[in-house]
């Protein structure tokens, strides 16, 4: 879960990292009022995505009138699919040097990884491509945390001079933000040194790790909610992972791997799935709402049910779908393919109660569904 800048920066401040004075504004008038108090400022679009500057979502303002005009332009802007509804009005800073700092979860080292670069303010992916030596990479043992001495010596070759100690201090605090909040990533770009020698965070990207969020309800409430379609929201509220797609072959399967595979095989035979939706053994009672959800997609032309039960009993899952089917009485074609634990019972259910014959081969069921979808369009 990503946090917008205004929600991320208080986490830095709480850990002792300096941030400029700022205020959130939902209207140009509010932005002007904030600038009146703050002085020369930066007006920044609040959206949970990067590259705001390139999109025109960050503007300098020397006066309240300029702040008002900037907010007027930025509010309502579409940045990578996010409509800007508020701006952060933040005091301008006296920038002597710009750095990049980040702590993230690294799958390769299976631990936290700290990144630092003197090429701040730039797109870090570009720095990584053009000049990878400019990025210092420091893996951290999560059991012992940051070793201050090792950190300072890693920074010592970068020409930071007297700023080594304050930068190392800020990085140690950045790690505290990461480890104290179940983060996936916390990034400051740019982290600046002011003319007076202070180290200040001008931006912050924070991402809360999904499983860790389960023990941080209060923090999670500050994050930007995942952008979901109406059907995806319905799925989430039911406790189902439903993802709406552009195709017309509806998918109901169990297990993440098998569901993805079902989509892949549909595409392999020339069709396109209309959704991702997995139901497991524990979710068999959700057969009816799951079926309703899949059928609610206006693009759907036919339905493919693919169960391969290990842990999940196929008879239980199938019964849920068969009951729901008989109750809802949809008119579109449906194709079943069922394997694994208790498949004989599951196949008998489809045969006896729906008068249909499940396909023995998954690929035959997929091919039939793709043909049916084409015929219906």
């Amino acid at each position, binding site marked *: 879960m990503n946090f917008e800048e205004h929600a991320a920066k208080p986490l830095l401040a709480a850990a002792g990292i300096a941030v400029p004075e700022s205020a959130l504004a939902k209207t140009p008038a509010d932005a002007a009022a904030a600038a009146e108090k703050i002085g020369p400022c930066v007006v920044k679009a609040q959206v949970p995505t990067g590259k705001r500057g390139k999109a025109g979502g960050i503007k300098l303002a020397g006066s309240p009138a300029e702040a008002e005009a900037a907010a007027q332009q930025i509010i309502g802007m579409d940045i990578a699919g996010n409509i800007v509804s508020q701006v952060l009005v933040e005091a301008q800073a006296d920038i002597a040097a710009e750095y990049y700092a980040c702590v993230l979860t690294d799958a390769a080292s299976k631990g936290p990884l700290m990144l630092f670069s003197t090429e701040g303010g730039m797109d870090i992916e570009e720095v990584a491509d053009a000049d990878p030596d400019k990025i210092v990479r420091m893996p951290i043992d999560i059991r012992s945390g940051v070793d201050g001495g090792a950190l300072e010596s890693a920074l010592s070759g970068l020409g930071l001079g007297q700023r080594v100690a304050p930068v190392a201090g800020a990085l140690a605090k950045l790690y505290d933000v990461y480890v104290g909040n179940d983060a996936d990533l916390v990034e400051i770009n740019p982290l600046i040194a002011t003319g007076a020698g202070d180290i200040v965070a001008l931006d912050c990207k924070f991402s809360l790790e999904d499983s860790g969020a389960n023990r941080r309800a209060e923090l999670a409430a500050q994050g930007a909610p995942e952008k979901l379609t109406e059907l995806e929201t319905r799925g989430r509220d039911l406790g189902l992972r439903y993802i709406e797609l552009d195709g017309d072959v509806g998918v109901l399967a169990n297990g993440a791997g098998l569901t993805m595979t079902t989509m892949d095989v549909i595409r392999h035979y020339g069709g396109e799935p209309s959704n*991702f939706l997995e139901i497991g053994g524990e979710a068999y009672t959700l057969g009816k709402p799951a079926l309703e959800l899949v059928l609610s997609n206006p693009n759907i032309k036919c339905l493919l049910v693919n169960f*391969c039960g290990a842990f999940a009993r196929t008879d239980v899952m199938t019964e849920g779908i068969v009951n729901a089917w008989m109750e809802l009485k949809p008119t579109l074609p449906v194709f079943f393919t069922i*394997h694994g634990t208790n498949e004989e019972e599951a196949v008998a259910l489809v045969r006896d109660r729906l008068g249909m014959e499940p396909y023995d081969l998954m690929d035959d069921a997929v091919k039939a569904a793709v043909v049916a979808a084409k015929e219906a369009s």
Partner: protein
Amino acid sequence: MIVQKNERVLVQGITGKQGAFWTERMQAYGTKIMGGVNPRKAGTTVCDVPVYASAVEAAQDGGFEIAAMFIPPMLAKAAALDAIEAGAKGIVCLTEHIPVQDVMYFLAAAREAGTWVIGPNTTGVVTAGESFVGFMPVFNERVFKPGNIGIISRSGSLGTLVCMKMVEAGYGTSTFIGIGGDPIIGSTTRDALEALDADERTKGIVLIGEIGGEMEEDAAEYAAKMDKPIVAFIAGAASPPGKRMGHAGAIVMGDRGTYASKRKALEAAGVNVLDTPSSVGDAMREAMG
């Protein structure tokens, strides 16, 4: 990480619904369950084995090699550290939704102690006809028949399908290694591949990957040096980028973790990457010659 017939298993969380249910099945299959752990029910007996207050106590009373974790996510870190302190040779962590920072913590401790970890979020490991730890349909003879094909999978449902395809094609399974669907896991695709390469019973390998992360690319480096034939399927070719596809680890970010990158790396290593898992039987016959 291949569980041997004589290895003793301790079930952490044995008194829970899933723990007890699967303990009975593991026992029926021949897995040597030596005991379970639940601090609040220490001294009692469940599934005919003693319940201990901790893995450390179990180690003092007879000992065990493998800890199977049927533990709620927020208690998993403490349970894993307990098993590591008790000197476990390996841990099979079935729990899903463990905070990733907790996972990194106990994986670091395990690495230092020399304890291997399968998972989190695995469906388990099966040594066909001998032993299994986790939740897989081992009794279904259409799915698991002892044989000489090693199977590595991030997914239980898809792994089950591939095991079935092997039986249909006249093969059986030597070892099934479910490595788990989380973004940070103990034993990677490459670790599992190395274990199967060293396993004498395994003559051919099916590698079932998934979009997200770089484990398949890493495994491909090792695969290039192997003599045993490998057939692969990567799930997620039709999945949109930026969305978590059910498994926390199954997400494409930018150009990292893509289907194309994994397929290219494996094909460059001489691995036959299939468009559909249904053809895995024919592909294995061809690969085994």
